[in-house]
């Protein structure tokens, strides 16, 4: 640890920290544009000037470029440093269009913040401003080059961090241009991060264009549900519509970024025609009526057919809370069958993965980023978990060697790799921090014995709660749905957010489905219970690493205002809830059913072995539960 003094505050930070970060650690934010924790130093913007008063380095210095040294005495508010900062801001504002009122970045703009902080207020330049032509960069990202302050973050992220080359910097001097050779969609599967890292409004999210200011948004710490990695996000919604998703920092998981699949897959949540109305044999009823009817039909069904004929189906895309109550519902009904996976192969592989993860050192995304040898077992990371591919790229950038085994595809421009026929051929003995990554479609069991004990293992699974379901399946004795149906005893199913092929649910006496997506089960069910999407509720997911993470409710459920065309406009009557808002989280639907069937009242779905997770902090980075 290195000790230094910043603005008379004693600071102690690890060696290798720069002065800017050291100041940040005690709450002093030095204005900066080009420096970014994940991209490192560039020294381009010159805004972070500080005055070094005593110690090994003297005079005005750029704090992002200066590693801390013992005995440094730093002033962030020295006259000279302030003059430099003011000068830099003045230069940046010479050509900035100052179009904040019509800029989507307004209110969440680093340039605005630091312009105020820098103290530049009166314009002295009276010449013409430089202007550029914008480019069409696809349907996701808006390009407005006139706002650019040339911090080079975009190109450093795009080319260096994310490894794509279709976007870059061109030209020179005051005319440098950040864009593509010609108009066209950005090719990188991580392009959306340009929106997050641009310190001003050059890259903005088209889906949120002109829709809201930062302070208008409903926002909360959340998780990405689109693969198993559990990347941290901040969804931003307004008027019951998810407008954009921002990456949320979690150093152990996604770091600072997310992939485009996670960022730009908003439409199912906003779909006006997603299940929002409880249905009883096709007739709209209130959610409460639907639950009453389901309890009634269930009693009759059980009397008639016996408990063995009922299956309760949870899902790897449902929260841990829901899947846990599914097990309780099975217990209460005495039903013989609890299922979490609609696919026998997926269940088998996920259970095998859980078994292997139990006996091995587990690798987080951060472990992958810091690995010096990465061996990928038969999976296409960009397809199965794009952020894992980005993590492998960071390892490669730091000098790691990357190997593919049993690779059906999986080759990537992100990281040059060599193909091996067996994991045993990988030079583990030469590596200090080796990591093996195994895909969800690969059992791994043939190759994992070839992995040395010191190596860490990561599985890339399919859904956001696959591992949670595997844990519950082991704890509560669940089987896959096809296995359950094979016996021929099942005559009724209650499905919660379950993706089941239509042929498995044909000819049942009783079918009820709770979901926010229009699945085959919802379309076929006699009783439809609309549930909330993840951004409309609190919950817990267990990612591929066995990390339990909490997501918080972002917005109230209901029809987005934008979804209400005049013909569908609701009658103007007073009501307490929003139109389309008579929905509940899947776990609450189960709690309602349990209570109606004579069970206990459940306010806290996490109980038993899982009670410890009740206090899980959504912003605490998560907790390993394996």
């Amino acid at each position: 640890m290195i000790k230094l003094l910043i603005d008379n505050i004693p600071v102690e930070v690890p060696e290798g920290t720069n002065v800017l970060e050291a100041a940040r650690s005690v709450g002093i934010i030095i204005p900066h544009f080009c420096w970014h924790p994940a991209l490192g130093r560039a020294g381009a913007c010159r805004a972070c000037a500080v005055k070094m008063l005593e110690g090994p380095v003297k005079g005005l210095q750029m704090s992002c470029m200066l590693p801390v040294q013992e005995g440094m005495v730093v002033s962030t508010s020295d006259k000279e440093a302030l003059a430099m900062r003011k000068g830099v801001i003045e230069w940046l504002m010479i050509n900035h269009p100052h179009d904040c009122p019509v800029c989507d970045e307004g209110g969440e703009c680093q340039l605005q913040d630091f312009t105020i902080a820098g103290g530049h207020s009166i314009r002295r330049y009276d010449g013409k401003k430089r202007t550029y032509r914008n480019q069409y960069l696809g349907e996701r990202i808006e390009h407005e080059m006139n706002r650019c302050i040339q911090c080079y973050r975009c190109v450093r992220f795009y080319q260096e961090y994310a490894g794509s080359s279709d976007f870059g910097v061109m030209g020179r001097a005051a005319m440098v241009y950040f864009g593509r050779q010609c108009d066209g969609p950005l090719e990188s599967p991580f392009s959306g991060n340009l929106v997050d890292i641009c310190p001003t409004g050059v890259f903005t999210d088209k889906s949120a264009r002109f829709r809201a200011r930062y302070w208008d948004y409903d926002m909360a710490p959340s998780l990405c549900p689109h693969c198993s990695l559990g990347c941290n996000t901040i969804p931003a919604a307004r008027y019951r519509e998810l407008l954009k998703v921002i990456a949320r920092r979690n150093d152990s998981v996604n770091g600072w970024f997310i992939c485009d699949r996670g960022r730009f897959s908003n439409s199912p949540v906003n779909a006006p025609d997603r299940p929002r109305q409880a249905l009883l044999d096709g007739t709209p009823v209130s959610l409460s009526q639907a639950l009453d009817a389901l309890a009634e039909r269930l009693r009759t069904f059980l009397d008639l057919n016996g408990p063995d004929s009922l299956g309760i189906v949870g899902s790897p895309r449902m929260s841990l809370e829901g899947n846990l109550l599914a097990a309780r519902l099975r217990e209460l009904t005495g039903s013989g069958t609890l299922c979490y996976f609609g696919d026998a192969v997926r269940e088998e592989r996920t259970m095998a993965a859980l078994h292997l993860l139990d006996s091995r050192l587990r690798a987080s995304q951060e472990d992958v980023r810091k690995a010096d040898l990465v061996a990928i077992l038969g999976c296409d990371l960009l397809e199965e978990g794009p952020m894992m591919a980005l993590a492998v790229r960071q390892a490669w950038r730091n000098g790691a060697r990357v190997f593919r085994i049993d690779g059906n595809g999986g080759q990537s421009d992100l990281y040059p790799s060599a193909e091996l026929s067996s994991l045993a051929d990988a030079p583990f003995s030469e590596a200090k921090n080796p990591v093996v990554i195994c895909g969800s479609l690969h059992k791994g069991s043939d190759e994992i014995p070839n992995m040395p004990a010191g190596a860490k293992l990561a599985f890339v699974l399919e859904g956001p709660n696959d591992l949670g379901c595997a844990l519950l399946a082991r704890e509560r004795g669940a089987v896959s749905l096809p296995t359950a149906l094979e016996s021929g005893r099942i005559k009724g199913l209650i499905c919660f957010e379950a993706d089941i092929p239509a042929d498995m649910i044909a000819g049942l006496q009783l079918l009820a489905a709770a979901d926010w997506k229009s699945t085959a089960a919802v379309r076929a069910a006699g009783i439809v219970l609309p549930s909330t999407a993840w951004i409309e509720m609190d919950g817990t997911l267990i990612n591929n690493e066995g990390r339990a993470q909490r997501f918080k409710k972002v917005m109230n459920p209901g029809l987005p205002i934008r979804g209400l065309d005049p013909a569908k406009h609701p009658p103007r009557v007073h009501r307490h809830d929003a139109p389309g808002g008579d929905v509940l989280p899947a776990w609450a639907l189960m709690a309602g059913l349990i209570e109606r069937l004579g069970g206990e009242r459940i306010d806290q779905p996490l109980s038993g072995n899982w009670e410890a997770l009740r206090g899980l902090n959504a912003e605490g980075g998560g907790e390993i539960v394996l």
Partner: protein
Amino acid sequence: VVTFDEYCSEGGFRALRKALSEMSPLDVQQAVIDSGLRGRGGAGFPTGKKWSFVPRDLPGPRYLICNGDEMEPGTYKDRFLLEHNPYLLIEGLALACYALGVEHAYIFIRRGYEQACENIRQGIAQARRTGLLGENISGSGFSLELDLHQSAGRYICGEETALMNALEGKRANPRVKPPFPAIKGLWGQPTVVNNVETLSNIPAIIANGPAWWKGLAATPEAAGTKLFCPSGHLALSGCLELPLGTTLGAIIDGPCGGMRPGSSFKACIPGGASTPFFTKQHWDVPMDFDPVAKAGSRLGTGGIIVFDQETCMVGVTLNLIRFYARESCGWCTPCREGLPFVRQILERIEQGRGEHGDIEILREHVQLLSYAFCALAPGAMGPLEGLLRLFEDEIREHITAKRCPFKKS
């Protein structure tokens, strides 16, 4: 052009043969240290000392780059050497490579120097044919490959780290220092970058000994000779080799034959466009690194641009700032945005739209641009600093009269 045979008959490659047969690499380095040779590219860093920073025990190759990207306005000495005597440079390069244990060197030449490139290309071919380049030179066991790279053509490519990026096929932005090129340079390997003129001095140092070479200077403090490139309102101009330490006045009144008829000396740029002006008060300053620095400017490249009494110094400075604003690589804010701001202010002063407050803005820029990423912007502030220090009255005259006093009509 000096032909190969002419060069050899005048003692060419004698120094290389001597070094390979009689001297160890460290002997050669020591001779260069003893000679007091300072870099001729503009910064004047002692050459032998620069060489001594190169670690000799790191794995992998070391590189030497000859910087022939001569783009400093008012400077044409490297062009003269490259076009007239390519073998002198090739021999100097070979000696430097021998001293540093370099087996692959590059000559990086300015885009526009077509003739120079052609001559060097032929020189390299000839040297290779005669066994002075390539494998096992003169049976000494020392091998050297020499490649010519013609720049894509930007001023910033002359900055040594930008030059290395350009050679690697990247954008010619300067790199972060440290690590310095001597430790981590071209392709991450230890690299020395030396100017054409610097390297061209080495054969003479080795052939005749460092003491002889050092003694060529005009003053005891200076070492060797220097190429000067006088231009402007002089009776005669051309590339001159003069003892280092010759006074400014002696250069102008001597080989340059004084000013043009009807002209009188007002000011000059002493060492290429990025150096602060000299005026009549600097007439007797010895043109050597330290005395020129003491007098408030820099010897730089030795490109002396002379202005007569009819010259508007605001206009001169504006012209230079336009060059630098255009040649900024665009990496850091002070250079990319600050230089156009300075240009705009000088334009409005020159056009009679200036205000007295503008002088303060210019002063701020001289101060703040010293904190740019590389030396381009601070260099660009050289003439502006000189203008503010020596010609403030002339600026105020523009502002008060609302016109340039030197413009007729």
